[in-house]
């Protein structure tokens, strides 16, 4: 074996990636070649240093909280590998019973929130879809007088359009979207580098309750006013999204723009 080959292979040897024949060859070469043996020793030291030097970066708690939901099911099942099998079995049975008892509760509790949370879920899905390349905007304009007429003839209602640049939420465009099988208007606003999607569609009842929903770092706020249902979705924090909603609602008190 030549040094040129060895220079590459000694890394694979260090990483335990060589088959037996190649390992023998590299060991023999190093016995005969002090230079390669020395650099092998150096790389061994480098590896040891990297292992010791706590270079591993662990996920911060904020990220962990976003993705690890506090769930009673499935998260804590330590492998039962003790010799006390009967006890382990009894515990397993108890655990299974707990799951059986708890599961329907969990399912109904998500069902109970019903319509509102379903809209929020759909809106968040749609918001995530809209983040895909080439998907965000059908009409690009910071001018409400361009965005509003653009919706004419595309929807069976006239959406409320407003630029909130003064409040720090500039309007950047609009899009046709579908939620729960019906066409809705989506307005796109920016908050610094974040995107806020505001969905709206007409409803028959005026339910004044404002509902806030969270899902994995996304916030959704929905409300109904003037027979129009609104859902604002973004990954900005909840208080900023509230600020946005207030700014938008403020406007709807004044006569809507013609």
């Amino acid at each position: 074996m030549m040094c040129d080959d060895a220079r590459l292979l000694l890394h694979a040897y260090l990483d335990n990636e060589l088959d037996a024949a190649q390992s023998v060859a590299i060991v023999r070469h190093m016995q005969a070649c002090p230079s390669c043996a020395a650099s092998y020793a150096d790389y061994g030291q480098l590896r040891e240093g990297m292992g010791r030097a706590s270079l591993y970066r662990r996920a911060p708690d904020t990220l962990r909280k976003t993705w690890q939901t506090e769930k009673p099911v499935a998260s804590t099942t330590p492998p039962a590998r003790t010799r006390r099998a009967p006890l382990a079995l009894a515990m397993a049975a108890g655990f299974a019973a707990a799951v059986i008892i708890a599961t329907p509760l969990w399912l109904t509790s998500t069902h109970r929130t019903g319509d509102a949370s379903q809209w929020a879920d759909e809106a968040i899905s749609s918001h995530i879809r809209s983040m895909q390349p080439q998907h965000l905007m059908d009409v690009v304009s910071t001018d409400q007088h361009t965005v509003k007429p653009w919706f004419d003839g595309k929807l069976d209602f006239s959406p409320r359009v407003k630029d909130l640049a003064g409040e720090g939420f500039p309007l950047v465009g609009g899009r046709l979207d579908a939620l729960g099988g019906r066409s809705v208007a989506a307005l796109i606003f920016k908050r610094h580098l974040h995107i806020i999607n505001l969905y709206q569609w007409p409803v028959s009842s005026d339910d004044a309750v404002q509902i806030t929903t969270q899902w994995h770092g996304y916030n959704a706020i929905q409300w109904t006013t003037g027979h129009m249902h609104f859902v604002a979705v973004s990954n900005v924090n909840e208080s900023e999204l509230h600020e946005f909603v207030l700014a938008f609602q403020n406007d709807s008190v004044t006569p809507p723009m013609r």
Partner: protein
Amino acid sequence: MPSDIHHPAAAFNRTSFEACVVPYLDAAYNLARWLARDDTDAQDVVQESMLRAFRYFHSFHGDDARVWLLAIVRNTFYSLRSKAAADAKHETFDDEAHTLIDEAPSPEARALISVDIQALQAALENLPHPLREVIVLRELEECSYKEIANITGQKIGTVMSRLARARERLKAELSSSSTEARRHDVR
């Protein structure tokens, strides 16, 4: 997707996502952090990667969730980076240009490597991305060559030669920084 949690089957899906993929959050962050070299950017990369992973979880066929997630993290990082820095020239890596450093077998070239954390960290951050990702996956994540090849979409031979280059660069940088430091002491 979130709306699916109303269906028991999808609820199971979500549960299995949390059981299969979420445990590798640290691995995802470690890779993202070393690629991005910035806490906030790394968090954005991981958040986006987890969303992509969740969205495409149906296409995951239960091989190795860690490898699958790390490949997503890597792709996400490069796609976000090319989007963010359209002006910054795309870093192309020419394997030929980065041939192995011709190390003269002189005694001081093999000066014992100082393994102090700060120098090591700086040396690692100074590596070009294609070298940095393989060495991070190998030494910190302890992936096999095959796993690295799967994550980066490269041939095993490429992984091996890049690892060799990465280590030679690290070694060269560490021994030069330590000799510099020594020269400093003398003055």
